């Protein structure tokens, strides 16, 4: 039986974000979960499912962060509990699966990290790089630079395409007082003049490093009707996990897991790419946005620059993308940055940046979202709609 229109995101939890020194990662999980629960009007004891995104290595003054710890401090004893270990992005699928199987009724999915103010990312670099470090290859920027360069070779994309993504998302961030880059506009010249990190990526091609957390709550559409906000209904879900370490990939310029994942999601939803009103795309790097939208069917390889130019994804544009500013300009909370923003837009709760008349865009009936893990090794696609 189809899962279409059976489950929904019913609440979103925010925290302080950006530079928030002196806080543990655990404290951000807790703040996000408590605010998400309050956002729905549920009581904490209603929460019987808990899913935590993988934790990056603990900082030197913290212990490993497990969902046991999060539940313990929330004072809950869930019937369903899960945490992924290595960025395999199946959290939404697991939540829907657990709800569908009757394992629980209300699931909170959370992430928290003191990435900016602790030494945690230093340990991540070590864990992440393995023997690649022998040749000076480290972390995600280098990891994504390899497929980005191959894509430049195969279909002539590059900084002239990616500048539209970085600058366009920054415009959205400037409408979002929560965004780390609020009040910091960026021009094409600023983009082109910024420093290389790992070429072909400059500083603004990279997602932010920030402190903070985010959580969402999911339940059945039936239960959602009793809660505070109009639900963001899951009409399509799809996933594909190529798994292969990118350095061994022989089709590095794509298609990525986004292609099969979106085909599956469109099929469940019974729609095509032409029905989509806006996109909330996992944007660890600008190139990730390009290749994901390409694999989702918005344009063919090599047509990205033409598709993006002229403000397509910006306020007032014909296909808004990453309307909070995204991970590039709002804040990085793994897949919860795009998912939570999609839910809030569908609920109509986005203030100045709300899609519709305020931003001279179409009022969103349908938003497509992505989550992505590893170096293009795991992809999950979700289509949300207004009730």
């Amino acid at each position, binding site marked *: 039986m189809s899962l279409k229109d059976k489950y929904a995101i019913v609440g979103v939890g925010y925290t302080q974000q950006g530079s928030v020194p002196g806080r543990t990662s655990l404290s951000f999980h807790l703040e996000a979960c408590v605010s998400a629960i309050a956002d729905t009007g549920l009581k904490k004891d209603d929460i019987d499912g808990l899913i935590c995104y993988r934790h990056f290595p603990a900082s030197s003054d913290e212990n490993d962060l497990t969902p046991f710890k999060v539940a313990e401090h929330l004072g809950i004893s869930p019937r369903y509990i899960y945490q992924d270990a290595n960025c395999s992005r199946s959290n939404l699928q697991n939540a829907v699966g657990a709800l569908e199987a009757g394992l629980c009724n209300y699931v909170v999915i959370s992430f928290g990290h003191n990435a900016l103010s602790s030494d945690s990312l230093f340990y991540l670099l070590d864990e992440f*790089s393995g*023997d690649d470090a022998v040749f000076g290859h480290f972390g995600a920027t*280098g990891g994504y*630079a*390899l497929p980005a*360069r191959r894509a430049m070779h195969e279909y002539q994309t590059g900084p002239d395409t990616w500048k539209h993504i970085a600058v366009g998302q920054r415009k959205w961030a400037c409408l979002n007082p929560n965004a780390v880059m609020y009040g910091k506009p960026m021009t094409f010249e600023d983009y082109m003049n910024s420093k290389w990190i*790992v070429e*072909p990526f400059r500083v603004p091609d990279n997602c932010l490093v920030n402190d903070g957390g985010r959580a969402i709550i999911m339940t059945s559409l039936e239960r959602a009707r009793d809660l505070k906000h109009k639900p963001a209904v899951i009409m399509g879900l799809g996933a594909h996990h190529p798994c292969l370490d990118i*350095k*061994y990939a022989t089709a590095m310029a794509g298609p990525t897991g986004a292609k099969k994942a979106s085909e599956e999601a469109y099929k469940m939803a019974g729609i095509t790419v032409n029905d989509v009103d806006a996109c909330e795309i996992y944007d660890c790097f600008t190139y990730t946005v390009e290749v994901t939208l390409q694999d989702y069917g918005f344009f063919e390889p090599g047509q990205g620059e033409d598709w993006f130019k002229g403000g397509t994804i910006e306020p007032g544009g014909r296909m808004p993308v990453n309307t909070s500013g995204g991970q590039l300009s709002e804040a990085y909370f793994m897949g919860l940055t795009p998912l939570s923003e999609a839910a809030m837009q569908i609920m109509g709760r986005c203030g100045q940046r709300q899609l519709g008349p305020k931003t001279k865009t179409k009022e969103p009936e349908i938003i497509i979202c992505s989550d992505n893990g590893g170096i293009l090794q795991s992809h999950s696609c979700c289509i949300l709609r207004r009730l």
Partner: protein
Amino acid sequence: MTGYDKPLPKLNSDTRPFWEGCKKHELRFQRCLGCGHVIWPSSIICPKCHARDTEWIVASGHGIVYTYATYHVAYHPGFLSDIPYVVAIVELDEGPHLLTNIINCRVDDVKCGMDVTVVWEDVTPEISLPKFSPD
């Protein structure tokens, strides 16, 4: 050996035969006796057909640059004096994609599709690194 301040590979039962080959300046790979696939990274099974029987071959050391990334920051102090430097994926004639460095070449001259050949850097008595240089 003193003075080598960069990370070294972790040797285990899966990786040791490759690095032992490198010590003799040979790029050794397993070839599947079931389907002929050249297996990389080395493994107890062939990912194409799950056969367990393999033979070791020595690659020619020639390939092309499949893709590359130019590092302008050093994530490890050992690489500070190298930046900017190029990390590349070399597609060997025998098939495997090998993560390596392109050396003896200006960073701006590296291109996808460029022909390259292995050059060996003996960094410790146990470890020699296969790097690549333009033909």
